[in-house]
């Protein structure tokens, strides 16, 4: 009886926690210093343990860390470690809603701040998918050109000339990311659904139409990634999990 009661209370508590973290609607401060993010950034990463922790992530992001072209899961391979730490810490702290990923990001699933440090170092070093999902317009089309101009006018200052981002400022690397994933995140940032978005970016893209959004992301999805960061072929298999 007592045990059953305890179990039910536990379930209820878990349900409430999940509900409150998954559906809270407030915009949070973009990057409040401290917390697990700062802790993980300072810890020296252990790549061997990072590989072990990564097995949890690979259930969705694949053992290559390439995600899926339809954008359900992003490519995380090659992303800046700082960005990965911030996003993981934000999801754990309830600052970014990701009900699908939430239980996988919990300390019970992947471990403490040291584990964050380890797994992100491992992911950042993975070679990237040479055939990421791209938008519909090839180089030479007017839509591509419009997207290129939009990128130069609006995005280059933070995300860099070729979408390389800025690790120190937690600006993500965009080159090589799947088109469909970027579309969703862009919309969520523009429309206030991604609560840990940078307010400067929210302001910058506020007036983008859906058409402009597609054109700018089409351009980004087609920025060629430095071959030294890419896997030799799309059939490459991560030998750590062979």
């Amino acid at each position, binding site marked *: 009886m007592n045990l059953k009661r305890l179990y039910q209370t536990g*379930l209820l508590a*878990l*349900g409430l926690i*999940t509900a409150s973290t*998954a*559906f809270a609607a407030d915009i949070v401060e973009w990057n409040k210093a401290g917390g697990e993010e700062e802790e993980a950034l300072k810890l020296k990463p252990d790549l061997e343990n990072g590989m072990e922790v990564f097995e949890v992530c690979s*259930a*969705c992001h694949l053992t290559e860390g390439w995600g*899926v072209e*339809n*954008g*359900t*899961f992003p490519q995380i391979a090659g992303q800046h470690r700082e960005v990965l730490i911030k996003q993981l810490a934000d999801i754990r702290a309830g600052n970014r809603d*990701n*009900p*699908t990923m*939430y*239980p*996988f990001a919990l300390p019970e*699933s992947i471990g403490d701040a040291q584990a964050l440090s380890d797994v992100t170092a491992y992911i950042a070093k993975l070679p990237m998918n040479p055939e990421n999902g791209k938008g519909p317009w090839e180089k030479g089309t007017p839509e591509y050109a419009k997207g290129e101009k939009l990128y130069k006018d609006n995005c280059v200052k933070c995300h860099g000339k070729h979408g390389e981002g800025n690790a120190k400022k937690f600006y993500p690397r965009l080159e090589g990311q799947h088109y469909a994933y970027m579309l969703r995140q862009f919309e969520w940032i523009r429309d206030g659904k991604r609560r840990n978005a940078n307010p400067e970016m929210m302001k910058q893209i506020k007036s983008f139409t859906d058409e402009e959004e597609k054109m700018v992301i089409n351009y980004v999805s087609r920025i060629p990634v430095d071959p030294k960061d890419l896997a030799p072929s799309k059939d490459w298999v991560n030998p750590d999990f062979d």
Partner: protein
Amino acid sequence: MKLSKTLVIIPAALMAISMSAAVQADGAALYKSKTCWSCHGKDAKSPMLPVYPKLAGQNADYLFNQMKDIKSGARSNGQAAAMKGVMGMVNEAEMREIADWLATQK
């Protein structure tokens, strides 16, 4: 007459068996490739959180309808939000195969 009937029945039965085996293999493969198992467990009965359901042996139509309703948004209660994120990966034919396979699991 009798012989010809048998001749028809045997290939039909064989075909039915091989078809259901194909559905089984596809359902099992889809259960993994569409990442269902990440949350519901490799054996479909060891979910990663206690509030996620065990699926092995569940009624096929019930499974199919839950998938369909979570995908369309008709069902948005409980843990549906966690699953909605991956429903873009499956169409109705695939949901049906996954549901049929899960129902056969013990």
